[in-house]
């Protein structure tokens, strides 16, 4: 049975074949690769982790639904922002703050610039920067890892807006970076790698983050050059400082596995929209972040500097792109025939 060849035909421009990747497919794969980290956070911080991450996702999705152009909820990018923001918050964060942060991240970090693809700064980090400015105490109240029961809340998650949080019942602990900066105390490396330390929800389990990142890099949804460049720069600089004064400056492995460096290097700096498009640019971008992280951590007033390092480098991405255009095909020096 053959079709009558007089029916209308599709007329499209070449190429007529299309690769399988789509924006939504990339985004949802990233969401999938964040799932193990969310599970780990829940294991370490109990139901508070799910509540905080859920609240920040809700805030992000709510504002995307409200202000975004139609159909952008399904592309998954707001979910990534919500999860990533949640992972950078402490477990005891009041939920309304987390939700507000998610809404700010998408509203100001993405939609204000024109939506997906047009934003300059990583939305999740912009959301976190907003929360840090607005609620400096809540965002640096780190709950202790040891609590009576796994299911007990790690702080006053259900505090109402603008009420003083009842911090009395929360047991707090310092993060490894805080211990190092203010008390010059180290933390065992194995704890840093596995995640049994204080800190934000998703930043503690270093090895797991690397594993999830490796999967994304293998799928080519994450450019490996950026995290490698960041980590190598941080390692080289901190090793050099450590060689000068081992008592004051921590060793390279401590620097890499403490704080939000791995989460930032693997999942935030590699955000396609806000990272350079050229490979040379990606190396420069990563090296800049690594340098700023070490500078802020060692000489700055804050114990942690990953967030500002990435945001600052986000701002110069257009210049990096312009400076690192690919080398043209053809000989480097075109020899004009002698006349």
């Amino acid at each position: 049975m053959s079709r009558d060849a007089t029916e209308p035909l599709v007329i499209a421009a070449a190429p007529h074949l299309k690769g399988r990747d789509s924006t939504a497919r990339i985004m949802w794969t990233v969401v999938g690769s964040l799932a193990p980290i969310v599970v780990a956070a829940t294991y370490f911080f109990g139901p508070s982790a799910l509540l905080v991450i859920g609240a920040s996702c809700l805030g992000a999705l709510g504002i995307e639904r409200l202000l975004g152009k139609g159909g952008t909820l399904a592309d998954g990018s707001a979910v990534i922002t919500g999860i990533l923001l949640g992972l950078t918050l402490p477990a005891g964060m009041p939920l309304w703050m987390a939700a507000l942060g998610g809404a700010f991240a998408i509203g100001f970090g993405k939609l204000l610039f024109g939506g997906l693809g047009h934003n300059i700064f990583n939305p999740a980090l912009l959301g976190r920067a907003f929360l840090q400015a607005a609620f400096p105490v809540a965002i640096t109240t780190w709950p202790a890892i040891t609590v009576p029961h796994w299911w007990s809340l790690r702080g006053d998650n259900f505090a109402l807006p603008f009420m003083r949080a009842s911090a009395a019942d929360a047991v707090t602990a310092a993060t490894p970076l805080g211990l190092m900066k203010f008390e010059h105390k180290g933390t065992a490396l194995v704890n840093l790698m596995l995640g049994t330390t204080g800190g934000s929800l998703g930043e503690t389990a270093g090895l797991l983050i690397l594993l999830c990142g490796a999967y994304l890099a293998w799928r080519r949804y994450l450019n490996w050059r950026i995290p490698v460049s960041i980590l190598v720069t941080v390692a080289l600089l901190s090793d050099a400082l450590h060689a000068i004064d081992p008592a004051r400056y921590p060793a390279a492995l401590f620097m890499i596995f403490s704080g939000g460096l791995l989460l930032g290097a693997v999942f935030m700096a590699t955000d396609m929209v806000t990272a350079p498009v050229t490979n040379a640019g990606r190396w420069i971008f990563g090296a800049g972040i690594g340098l700023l992280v070490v500078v802020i951590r060692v000489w700055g007033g804050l114990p942690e500097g990953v967030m500002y390092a990435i945001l600052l480098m986000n701002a110069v991405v257009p210049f990096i792109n312009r400076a690192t255009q690919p080398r043209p095909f053809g000989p480097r020096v075109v020899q004009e025939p002698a006349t």
Partner: protein
Amino acid sequence: MAEARAALLLRRLAGGVARAGFRHGVHPPECKELTAALPIRRMPFPDEVVLPLRQHAGKPARLVVRKGDHVERGDVVAVADGFVSSPVHASATGRVIDVDWWPHPDGSMCQSVRIALDRWSGQLPRPRVVPDWHGLTPAQVVQAVQDAGVVGLGGAAFPTHVKLQPPPGTTIDTLVVNGAECEPYLTTDHRIMVEYAERVHFGIRIMMHALGVPRCIVGVERNKPDAIAALERTRPADLDVTILPLTVKYPQGAEKLLIKSVLDREVPSGKLPASVGVIVQNVGSIAALAEIFETGLPLIERIVTVSGHGVQRPANLIVPVGTKARDLLAACGGLTDDAAEVLFGGPMMGNAVSNLDAPLLKGTTGVVVLTESEVRGREETACIRCGHCLDACPMFLNPSLLGDLARLGRYDDMQKERLGDCMLCGSCSYVCPSNIPLAQLFSASKSALRRNAATAGVKS
């Protein structure tokens, strides 16, 4: 040859896999299994053929017949108009029933000669003198090739004789034969190499004689082991001819990239392969050239692949030039119920035809019919700056930036960003997760630039 062989050996030692090749590029599904093993067969003559005067790059041919004329198969119906032009010959015996505008595969209308076939004719060409290539000077070979109307059969349809006469002052040291056939679905060149390996080598011999080049390298993608074996088996002992297996990667068959893969030479921007001492010819063109010196017949038929999941019986066919797509598809059992798009050429660079009355040209490598499921679902979304297009572009352009400039109509800025190097291979569009029609934007921008250049003097 020694250089290419040594380079290949080094690459084999270094990587395990021979990474002979260019950087970047993409890996679309090959889809060649539909026709790769099917022997070439001859399609029965249709009732009518349509011969457009514009079938080659360069100036259209000049008409020499009138309505009502009787033409024999192989007779000239239009002569070359200048050096960069090619004549058109009647592909069948019959009567010229019309000389008028007719749908061209590129979507435009073109002056074409319509020939109604003589029902009782045996379609035998007039007896011919077969030229003996030994006795011909290079200039005489060039003339013979032009008179036979041979053009590049790989798709671009650049007159072959023009390539046989490299610009004065250039020295050609290598003839590169293009057997890459990197377009999905197409198996035309593949079958030519398998079935007509000796003819290909005969063509190479004549071409080396005409060009006076000492060596020839035939580049064939590794997915055609039978073609490589056939060419190796028939390789003449007295000529310096190398068969070089190439990595399977699109667009391996693009002229500049093939030269890069085979000789590791880069053709400068805006220059011809002759500037690096190379002439590239497609295997199909070489076989067509050989036929002139075997039978004396001009280019009046060609081999095409009819394939795709939208066609009932995919095939490799010898088809008279000027056969309408409708007749060709009918000879292959017609379209399937879910056929949606008919392409002239492969799916990466071929163009969709709106009218099945469009005739097959000398440069048509195949007809591919895609189904509804293959053409659906391409909604465009915002660019997410993933940079995959930069990693795909074999010419090292920045398609993302060029796309932005195209949307803004900044064509002159696109030219500064080397739009001229873009060969519209479509690798960027293929990988784009946001379905941005980059290749289409670039094609439109190139047209806009040409138009601006053409009207520049008029406006001022």
